[in-house]
């Protein structure tokens, strides 16, 4: 549940919250591209640290920390598998232990950079804005609606799952008991009520929508219309600069490893 916590939107106002979702999405894509371009620790660390001001400006430090903590298990797994595979692959000859550690750390930070930028995006973008952005990009309204509804119900489902787990624990269910297969089976009493309730809820939602004349007029208008502001254009330019810079550095500049820098 913890990983979802980080993606729970809170309605507040900040320069980042007020930005056009399409622009923010472009930014996420750029960061994504930059993170994939590099596989050395130094630039990934820079990317990681460079995003921190955004988190502070948006005032979502606590939520961000929580989603990082939630994904820390994955981070550890990524680090461990990288260490192991690099070590085995090279037969010990790939390089020194410090350089293997540095590479594994780089892969871990690549993941953390992605978590960070996605968190910034989801924590500062309301599902409504996101739907609006999709709609104004020409996606059919039905699809937009399905998408925003799905997102909006994630926290509801997370909460419901917790209640169901509590209810079954109160009947003596022990989720952490037994071997792997047994543990997966332990989740059946949690998954079935969750599924049944979601289906029931979606049917109710459909009925409620029909009774409020869903789809009655083929041409919809919106109360709010997204409009790019000056700050949005600045952000686009910044994103593009990051992209170009990243590509340039990747192609023409050789990046020193941190281990080399330290030992030099």
């Amino acid at each position, binding site marked *: 549940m913890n990983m979802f916590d980080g993606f729970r939107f809170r309605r507040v106002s900040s320069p980042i919250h007020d930005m056009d979702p399409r622009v923010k999405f472009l930014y996420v894509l750029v960061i994504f591209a930059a993170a994939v371009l590099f596989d050395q620790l130094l630039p990934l660390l820079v990317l990681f640290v460079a995003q921190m001001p955004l988190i502070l400006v948006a005032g979502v430090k606590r939520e961000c920390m929580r989603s990082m903590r939630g994904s820390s298990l994955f981070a550890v797994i990524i680090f461990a598998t990288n260490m192991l595979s690099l070590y085995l692959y090279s037969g010990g000859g790939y390089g020194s232990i410090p350089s293997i550690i540095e590479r594994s750390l780089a892969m871990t930070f690549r993941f953390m950079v992605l978590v960070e930028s996605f968190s910034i995006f989801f924590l500062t973008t309301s599902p409504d804005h996101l739907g609006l952005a999709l709609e104004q990009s020409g996606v059919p309204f039905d699809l937009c609606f399905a998408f925003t509804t799905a997102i909006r119900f994630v926290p509801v489902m997370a909460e*419901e799952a917790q*209640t*169901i787990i*509590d*209810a*079954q*624990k*109160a*009947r*003596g*269910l*022990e989720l952490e008991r037994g071997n792997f297969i047994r543990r997966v089976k332990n989740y*059946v*009493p949690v998954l*079935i*009520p969750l599924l*049944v*309730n979601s289906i*029931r809820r979606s049917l109710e939602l459909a009925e409620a929508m029909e009774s409020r004349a869903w789809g009655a007029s083929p041409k919809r208008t919106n109360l709010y219309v997204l409009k790019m502001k000056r700050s949005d254009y600045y952000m686009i330019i910044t994103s593009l600069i990051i992209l170009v810079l990243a590509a340039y550095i990747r192609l023409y500049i050789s990046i020193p490893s941190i281990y080399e820098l330290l030992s030099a």
Partner: protein
Amino acid sequence: MIEVEDLYFTYPSGVEALRGITLTIRDGEFVAIMGQNGAGKTTLVKHFNGLLKPTKGSVKIDGVDTTKASVAELARKVGFVFQNPDHQLFCETVEDEISFALKNFGFDEDAIKDRVDWALNLLDLTRYRNISPFMLSGGERKRVALASVLAWDPKILILDEPTIGQDYEQKERLRNFIVQLNAQGKTVIIVTHDIEFVAECKPRVILMAEGRVIADGDPHEILTNPNLVSKASLILPETTRILLGLRGMEQSGRLARVIDVYEAGRILTAMLRDQG
């Protein structure tokens, strides 16, 4: 026995739901926990079977600190029926549903069969034995959930909002049932907003507001105190309201503490008779 000692609880989200609760519930007591939405009632009772552990302070069940025992161990003693039965029903038949907990607690085959029979009979569900719980009505599903907890005969029974969505007849039956269980020596704790229901059962009342206990004791004292009751976002029982509204009755001490219709009727009839 449940001993709660200076209990504080803060949710991971930062909401401080309980702020210094101290109380003791002895064996065989019948208790109603009441209070406004968000007062912390559910949070409090979730500490009784270890689903939540104190942030500060302690909760002891029969002398055992809840932080030292697993939920499964505590649940054997403390049965908890959740408000919404749809949060726990998942089996193909009502029978399986009731035996689920018994299997978890390691009862043997014969004992399971006996107890399922007993629980089905107790809640008048025998005819639904082989039916899917999802086919039943809301009230019936609630009874299945209750049966599935009663089946292992926990010493302490907690019911979160048991009267919600029940018609008058079901409420009456539930009331009789609870009173009967309590008479047999079970500790019963109900969490509810239904002041009329409480006025009829007359359990010990614990009123909560903003994570604290604001009153604890005799229902005649608490449910007729307009200040306390409104602090808990409740309104006085109807009978009490009528009696308070009767001009010239305020000074009549006998009527000032009446909360249920039968008692009021008895006293009023006697008074009318006295007056000729």
